[in-house]
Each structure stands twice: as C-alpha cells, then as structure tokens.
C-alpha cells in the first residue's frame, strides 16, 4: 500500500519560536512514539508508519486497529494490535513476533528501554516477552486489564484494573503488591523517579500512590474521564487529559496538597492528549486539534497548533516528545500526523 500525503503545510509559523509541519496519513492515529530520527505511529487501519526526514515508510501491518506502540533502545518499533500480535520491527526492517495472543485483542502494551522487556494485556491476562521469547505470564487479575506500564528501571510492572492497580515483580516470583481504590482504573503511569504511581479512573479522577510512604491521594475535579497521564521529567508535576486546561498537579507536599497549575485554556474544548517533558515544556493536545506547550513555573502556554472549529475528528489523540524536547510529534483522529518544532 502506498502512502498518499494529501497535504503538507510546510513550515507554518504559529507562535514565535514554534513551527509545525504535518501530513495526512489516511486513517486515525491511535498511538505514537518518538524515535531517534522521527517517530512511529500506529493507525486505526492497522498500519505502523515511521516518519522521518527521509519521508513516510510503512513498517508493519496489523489487522484491526494498532493499540500500542513503543520505541526500543536500538530504535526498533514494538507494535500491538487487535489481531493479538505484538511485533518488533527493527531499525533495519527485520521483523519478529514477540507475543501472539491468538486473535484476542491486545488492549494495552508497554516496553521497557531499561531491560528490553515487552508486556501485553489481553482480557484478564498479561504476557511478558524479552528479546529471546516469553519470560512471564500473569493471569490472576480479578478483572480485565485496562492499562499497564513498567517502572523506570523495568523491574516492576504496574497493571490497572477494576478496583485498583496490581504491581508485579519482573525479577522474582514475589507476590504482587495490590494498590486498592474502588472503581475502574482506566490508565496507569509511573513517575520518572519511580516513587509515585498514578491511575486515571472511570469516576473522572486521578488516584496517586506514594510507593515510599504508602499514602494514597485522590485528585478530582475533571469534567471528563482522564485517559492519558504524564509526568514532568523531574517528577515534580503530574498532568493528564480530561479538563479544559492542562491541569498540572505539583507533587511536592504530596499530590493534591496544592491545586493544579492550570495551563492553556482552549475555548469549547478539553485536553485529550498529554506529553511530559521539562517543566517548561508540558504539552497538551485538545479535542478541537489545538496543541499547547505550557510552562508550569509560570502557568502560561504558547499555541503550537491552532484548533479547528466544527470537526469532531480534529481531536489530538497522541503527543510524544523526542529525546531533547525540540520536536513534539502529534497525531489526530482525522489522520493528521505531524511535528511541532520548538526553535528557542
């Protein structure tokens, strides 16, 4: 299948110090990951694309939607799909199947660059694979797995589910740690310093656990169910989708001890995607297609991409920063896939 780029806006100046460039890839962008040179995107029609200065290339094909994508330490792409497959596509194009769930939808997957493990969830089950094959299987979850993520060191796996989060050890057969909170935890994220775990809940809240003190914190006030969670690189702020601003909760003193810094209100819209970064570059994508890059120290933001009125599919579905936080990649439900260049 060939890629048709329907439009290329070129470098469009939005705000001083920011330029954006985008293409249209012909299907909704469901998932995104930054690579060393460019990014990898998973689409609703099953394609996995990489986009770089060399252009767009199709790297893998799932049937059904791509549900998760991640970059490996050596610039390969791990992709999971509704066909039950988790594929590893290496930078040189070589491909292997890491996990085969026999047609069951892979609903969530994560990869650790620290130790090369890949975990995938289907139904109530999780399978973990290393570069040389399966290394673990965790099947005792009380309900279907909603989301999962590795600890920064890759030695533990946090799994969100109904009534909380389960934490499995990847290094021994220790009994899992159960973090209980009533209700459905739809997304989970580990802070970059490894201290906190945050979950987004069906009840339009965030719930955070301090893994050092064992305390837990309830962060509410969202108008929609938060579905994406991110952290500033220094773990000082927790941000999420679900409000009409990029709500960034200070962690000092305990999450929720202070109200969130509210960055970048967009009229008649709400935050649908977030990406962490340095505290001066916290990114939020909005349901109307707008992208803002905020500064948590000042509470202000610059517009990196303008919104589109009247298109319910303009919604930004994913954001991902590159390693030095100069390029912010974005994908939208209407098939827009592009990058924002921060030039100063």
């Amino acid at each position, binding site marked *: 299948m060939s890629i048709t780029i329907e439009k290329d806006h070129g470098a469009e100046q939005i705000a001083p110090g920011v330029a954006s460039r985008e293409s249209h890839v012909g*299907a*909704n962008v*469901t998932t995104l990951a930054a690579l060393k040179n460019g990014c990898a995107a998973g*689409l*609703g*029609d099953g394609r996995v694309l990489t986009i770089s200065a060399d252009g767009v290339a199709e790297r893998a094909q799932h*049937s*059904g*939607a791509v*549900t998760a994508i991640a970059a490996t330490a050596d610039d390969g792409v791990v992709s999971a799909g*509704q066909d039950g497959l988790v594929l590893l596509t290496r930078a040189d194009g070589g491909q292997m199947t890491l996990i085969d769930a026999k047609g069951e*939808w892979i*609903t969530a997957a994560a990869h650790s660059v620290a130790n090369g493990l890949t975990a995938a969830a289907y*139904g*109530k089950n999780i399978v973990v694979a290393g570069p040389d094959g399966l290394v673990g299987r965790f099947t005792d979850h009380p*309900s*279907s797995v*909603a989301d999962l993520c590795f600890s920064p060191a890759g030695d533990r796996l946090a799994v969100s589910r*109904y009534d909380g989060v389960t934490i499995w050890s990847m290094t021994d057969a220790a009994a899992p740690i159960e973090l209980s909170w*009533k*209700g*459905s935890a739809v997304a989970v994220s580990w802070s970059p310093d490894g201290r906190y775990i945050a979950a987004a*809940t*069906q*009840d339009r*809240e965030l719930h955070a656990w301090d893994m050092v003190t064992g305390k837990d914190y309830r962060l509410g006030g969202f108008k*929609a*169910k938060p579905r994406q969670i991110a952290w500033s690189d220094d773990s000082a702020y927790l941000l999420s989708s679900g409000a009409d601003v990029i709500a960034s909760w200070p962690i000092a003193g305990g999450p929720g001890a202070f109200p969130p810094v509210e960055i970048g209100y967009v009229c008649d819209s709400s935050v649908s995607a977030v990406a962490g970064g340095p505290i001066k570059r916290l990114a939020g994508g909005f349901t109307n297609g707008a992208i803002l890059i905020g500064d948590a120290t000042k509470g202000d933001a610059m517009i990196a991409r303008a919104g589109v009125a*009247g298109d*319910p*599919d303009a919604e930004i579905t994913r954001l991902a920063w590159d390693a030095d936080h100069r390029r912010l990649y974005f994908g939208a439900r209407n098939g827009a896939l592009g990058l924002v260049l921060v030039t100063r």
Partner: protein
Amino acid sequence: MTTSQKRTPVTLLTGYLGAGKTTLLNRILTEEHGKKFAVIVNEFGETGIDNDLVIGADEEVFEMNNGCICCTVRGDLIRILGGLLDRAEKFDGVIIETTGLADPGPVIQTFFVDEEMRDRLQLDQVVTVVDAAHFLDRVDESHEAEEQTAFADLIILNKIDLADAERLAATKAKIATLNPHAQLIETTNSAAPIDALIDRAAFDLDRLLAIEPGFLEEDPEDHEHDDTVGSVSLSSTTPLDARAFSEWMRALVREHGPSIFRSKGILAFSDSPKRYVFQGVHMVMDSQWGAEWRPDEARESRLVFIGRNLQPAMLKQGFEGCRAKVAA
C-alpha cells in the same frame, strides 16, 4: 452532546436463552443487507460464524464511586466499543447481545454515564426476543424474562408457529401488561426485517417528541400492581411547577431508582412556553427542551414509568403535587 456528526447507533439485543437471539444474529451477519454491523456477544462461538466483526464480551459490571447503586456501567463494553471506535473502518451499527440472565440496566447506563460513549455512540433501542411458545412458563419463574420485556423498545415475538392461537393471545396479553408501549413484531425463525433493528432512535429525545399521539396515553386497563413488572402512565392538563417536579423526580429516583426500569415524559411547565422532554433508565436521566406549545394545543403533561412493584397511587399523588398552584 458536543459532536455535530452522526453518532453510530447501538442496538441492545436481549432475550432468554432459546428465544432466537442467535438465529437473529446469524441472519444479521450472513444476509445481504448492504449494512456493516459489529456484533458484541457474550457466548463467543455460539453464532458459529468466524468473523472479525464478532467480538466476545466479559460482562464486567463496574460500580461508580459516587455510591449510587444505579450508576453501574459495563466496563468491558466501554473497552470494546472504544476499540471499535479506534478502527478506521466505520460501522452502520453495533449490536450488543446480552445473556438471558443479564440485567440490561448497566448496559443502557453505560451510554449515558460514560462521556466518550455518549459523545460518539447513540444507544438506538432495546430489542427483546420473546419465545411465543415458552414465554408464559419462563416469565413466572424468572425475573430476568420479565425485566428484559419491560426494558424493550421493540419486542420480537418469535416462534409464533409453535404456539397455538390461545397461547399466542395469552402471551401478547402478558407482554401488554409488562410493557404496553413497546413496538411488537411477530416472527418465525427470527425473521424480523433488518431495518427494524437499527436506526430507530428510541432513546432520542427528539424522536420521543415526534412519537405518534397515543403512545404515552393511559394504560388500556387497570392492571394488578403488586410485586410484578408493569407500567404506570400519568397525565395532567394543569401545567406543572418546574421546581416541584424536579424535586419530586429526584426524590423518586433516589428512593425507587432500582425498581424503575424506564421512564419517559413530555411535560408542560407553568413558566415555560416550551415542552420539556425527558427519559431515564433507573436513576440516570436525560432531558432537554422541545418545541413551543402551539396556542391551539392542549398543554398536557404525560409521563410513563415501567418497573417492578410500582405503586400507582403513590406516583399519582406525587405527580399531582407537582401541579402549579396558579394556572399560567
């Protein structure tokens, strides 16, 4: 609702085991009707059709943290429907099959409580398949068979070839006491027209406004209202006090929400020239303002409750207490 685009309609298909749901699903999946449906089933493999548009569900009922027993949702459906919405392909409709034993309440509430479901999908109608030959035996021994019938917008009375005239008449009479407002189609081999199953917008408040006169009229006869499922219709030609009505409804569903399966109403308030339309499932309510009453029109408020153990006298008294003190 914030989206201007047409939302994908979702039909909920219920019915007791053996009533003919699987036959109906097989027809939907195999017949040439020019429409593309995704089908979510509980018993995977029962349809015997290998099709990537048939997806198995786990029936995971999730409670919300607000402590409201009625605000349960189906977490598995949120996940599966979210996954279908992530696909690039578009569907003419989604059909969700529930098992014979499942309460349809949490499935219906999912489409009102979860904002993503609400924004992108439209609960279209509840279709209940009833076995004409065995329904009367089932309904006496099972709450579920009664409740599925009471929740329905469309009842497919199937296997009419296997019931004699007397039994068929008795079955229809029983259905009329459980749910006099549902549309009824009689079939053999579940041969209902595909068009009747989707895009009927039974939960659409605009459609509720456009329903033919008589739909919400008083029940044809007084029923025995004991510990059984039935309906109560109320009407008033005196305009209602908006505040009194709102307080009454809130207290009513707080106290009796679990036993009120469906409620619908078109109301005239003393302080508004417009119709007020609402519908509810247990404690979850959806409402909006409709068109203005015409000067030559009787401003008649009508509402109907379908549920278990409804108390007509109590409902009537409460409703009459909502009448505005001074006619506008």
